[in-house]
């Protein structure tokens, strides 16, 4: 598209990210959690795919679904169990700076979220059923904006609690009147 100008190879492989990365990575247990989540989703999908393979009549014009749907299900399972957790772990990062909470999430689409401590309204710590198995918690930081919520996923439970307490305490001290 750009004529004969060759892009430097660095840009082709790792395109420049719009903003810098947060400093800290998640707990490694998060990989185990993501694998488990992927396995559970794959089991349900597999049941659905098996039903399709059994009940689609072989004579109909949609007979190709008998192999296409199970194949898609297998592909999905391989990606969610074998690829995505490690990919995500490499991408996901978080950081609490002097005046903001900063996270990076996603694997194909990446989202950087930055919320200043002065605009924090509430800080929640949640532990899902699976998270409890792996000893993890999620810290959710809420602001006045419905879209300005930042979640730090899958921190070790004690780290999460410390982070939440610290944030709540600092938010109280520097809270802005402007919401």
């Amino acid at each position, binding site marked *: 598209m750009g004529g004969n100008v060759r892009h430097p190879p660095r840009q082709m492989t790792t395109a*420049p990210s719009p903003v810098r990365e947060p400093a800290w990575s998640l707990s490694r247990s998060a990989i185990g959690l993501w694998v488990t989540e992927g396995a559970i989703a794959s089991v349900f999908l597999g049941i659905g795919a098996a039903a399709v393979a059994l009940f689609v009549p072989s004579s109909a014009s949609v007979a190709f679904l008998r192999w296409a749907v199970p194949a898609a299900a297998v592909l999905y399972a391989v990606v969610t169990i074998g690829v995505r957790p490690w990919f995500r772990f490499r991408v996901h990062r978080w950081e609490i700076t002097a005046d903001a909470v900063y996270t990076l999430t996603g694997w194909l689409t990446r989202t950087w979220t930055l919320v*200043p401590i002065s605009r924090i309204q509430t800080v929640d710590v949640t532990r899902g059923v699976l998270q409890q198995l792996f000893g993890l918690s999620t810290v959710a930081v809420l602001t006045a904006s419905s879209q300005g919520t930042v979640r730090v996923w899958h921190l070790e439970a004690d780290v999460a609690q410390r982070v939440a307490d610290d944030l709540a305490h600092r938010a109280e001290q520097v809270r802005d009147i402007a919401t």
Partner: protein
Amino acid sequence: MNGPIEQNEPIARRTSPRIVLVHTVTFRQARQFVPAVIPIVAATGLGGGMTTVVALVVGVTLLSLLTAGLSWWRFTYADGPNSVVVTRGLLSRSVRTVPNDRIRGVEVETPVLHRVFGLVRVRIDAATGAVPGKDEEVVVDGMSAAEGDRLRTAVLTHRHVPAPDDGAAPVPAEEEFGRFDNRWLLYAPLVGSYLALPAAAVGALFRLAQELPENLRPDFDEAALASVSALVIVVGGTLALLLVGSVVGAAIVNWGFRLVRRGGSLIAVRGLLTRRHTELEIDRIRGTTIAEGAGMRLVRAARVNALVTGLGDATRRGQLLPLGPRQEAWTLARRLVDDPGPLVSHPPAARRRRIVRATVGGLVVTAAGLVATAAAGWWWLLVVGLVLLALGVPLGLGRYAALGHATGPGSFSVRSGWLVREQALLQRRAVVGWQVRQSFFQRRNGLATALACVGAGRGGYAAIDMAAADVADFTVAASELWASTFSRPAP
């Protein structure tokens, strides 16, 4: 802090008894029995014809009168120096206390029937920011206009200055910000929401006709409906109805619209049948949006909304200019937020991306059409696909042309959208967070989307597909110092 003695103990007040009549006529309370009545009616049927209908009407009216009377009798409100207390409920009593410092706005409205009886309805809005919900609104229905004004001033002045008495507060000077010119009603047929108004009315009429008993329904001759001239009349009539209906609808909603500044508040008054009186605190205004639909752009019309923190039902209440010329819209918007200057357009890669995204649907249909033509001779699918593909290109170009962002000393601006092109002008202090998104394809093209999270309006306003390299500078220029976390090297 305490005023005279009667200030300490707020008096429980009742609404005017005349409201019972209004509510009887409008079935305000009896409406909740409708789900119970329908199966009864369905079971007995309307076989008796006129007599049953009349009996039903009388019965329902009596029921309505009874429930309206009971709920009037059980309803009291009191405005104290610190809070507004509303008590109600037929059997189980509910007492609702709204602290004055949580009240975000007061709206006085006068529907037609209320006006006949000289009454008003006051809505006290105490919405919290993050959790939207109608429950946060307190409605006191059916007081005299003077009492409504007193309540509004009382609630608002208690909040601004705790000490002074009601009524004694001097009326601050008014400054007119805008006034609706009735010629602007002619823009209405080009605005989607006003066009939808008569369409909805026609739909409701048809439904009503279906509900009527057989002998009350107007008789149509099936054969006459089928002829061509009848078709022309119907289509022409519908078009004319839509045109006239949209203008009439816009007039009903916006008649006599006036926006004035009184002290620290903006007050909007409007409506032909129902007069609405909405008050917004200027201190809570974080920005404005200027929206131009595709049809409105043809005639250079626009509408302006205020972005107010913690305002419930913001799309209606925040309207500062419901419909008007673009120039008028900009003059008004600039009075509230500094204009950050002309927009910076986004890089050419953003144009490619908009076109690709607008044509991808057409491409899929075209591909399916090719297969279908080869397999089954369904050439029409191919034609549809090609038409969609051809339309996608101008659509993508139009969507790209709308994109842009700008930063000024105290404010910034982002614009996007084609069907409704919306430009948000926001104060820098409005931003409560940033969300930068980059999809796989955006990363390959060096683009990113920066969403400014705002505790008002839609909650977030995005600069779509801006150059990835500009994001960090833009976020710092558009919000406060904390945003430099994006560019400052990690510790």
